[in-house]
């Protein structure tokens, strides 16, 4: 009876080993496929959805850990979720990239008109400040303080405008537009303080 039990136990162990060994290949393949799939979307994902990318990396790291420990069953159990996560990551990164591309295109279009118009604002303010600086008695609607503020504000917007044009030259139209808007807002404020109308 004992011999029979030992034989049955041995047979079961052997079957288990065979079963485990048969899962090793698919588990290794699953991890390798996941790494390949993640690598294919890595650049875009790291740029546009870094947190989501890190989460998928962690999932794969966990699967690799299970693989190293010989827990092939765990690897195969996790594989579908990892595959789905990579798919979601790819879609999310592509969507973000499309949004960024659209925003860049919009900013580029806006820059073409702003880059022509804004220097005219600055020029008009510059000329007005120069003439008012020659005046012995400023008009009633313009104080000495507002003229002094206009002069310093003019220096400020010139510097910011230089930054904006540099950003545009480097292809960062979104950044250029943000700076240009700051220039235009400040310029409008100065023009109002100098009685230059709307």
């Amino acid at each position, binding site marked *: 009876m004992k011999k029979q039990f030992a034989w049955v136990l041995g047979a079961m162990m052997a079957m288990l080993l065979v079963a485990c060994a048969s899962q090793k290949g698919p588990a290794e393949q699953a991890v390798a496929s996941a790494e390949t799939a993640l690598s294919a979307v890595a650049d875009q994902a790291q740029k546009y959805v870094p947190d989501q990318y890190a989460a998928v990396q962690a999932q794969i790291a966990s699967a690799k850990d299970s693989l190293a420990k010989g827990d092939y069953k765990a690897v195969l159990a996790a594989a579908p979720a990892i595959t789905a996560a990579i798919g979601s990551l790819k879609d999310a990164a592509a969507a973000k990239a499309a949004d960024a591309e659209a925003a860049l295109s919009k900013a580029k279009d806006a820059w073409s008109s702003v880059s022509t*118009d804004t220097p*005219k*604002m600055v*020029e*008009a*303010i510059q*000329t*007005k400040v120069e*003439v*008012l600086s*020659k*005046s*012995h*008695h*400023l*008009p*009633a609607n*313009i104080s000495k303080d507002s003229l002094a503020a206009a002069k310093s504000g003019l220096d400020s917007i010139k510097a910011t405008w230089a930054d904006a044009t540099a950003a545009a030259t480097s292809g960062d139209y979104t950044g250029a537009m943000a700076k240009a808007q700051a220039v235009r807002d400040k310029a409008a404020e100065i*023009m109002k303080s100098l*009685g*230059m*109308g*709307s």
Partner: protein
Amino acid sequence: MADTPPTGDNPYTQVHVVVAGDTLSKIAQKYYGDPSLYNQIFQANRDVLKDPNKIFPGQKLKIP
């Protein structure tokens, strides 16, 4: 005297529409607080003004 929103070559340069009784000195007084700066306006409008003493109602003058 009447002023209007900026127009002209530079849309942000003020424009003054001349009314009866205006002189360049009066316009300079209004915009600069100093009538002696009339020549600034004259020089900016040499395309339409030949004589600083001759301006006419309805003329649109750039106020630099």
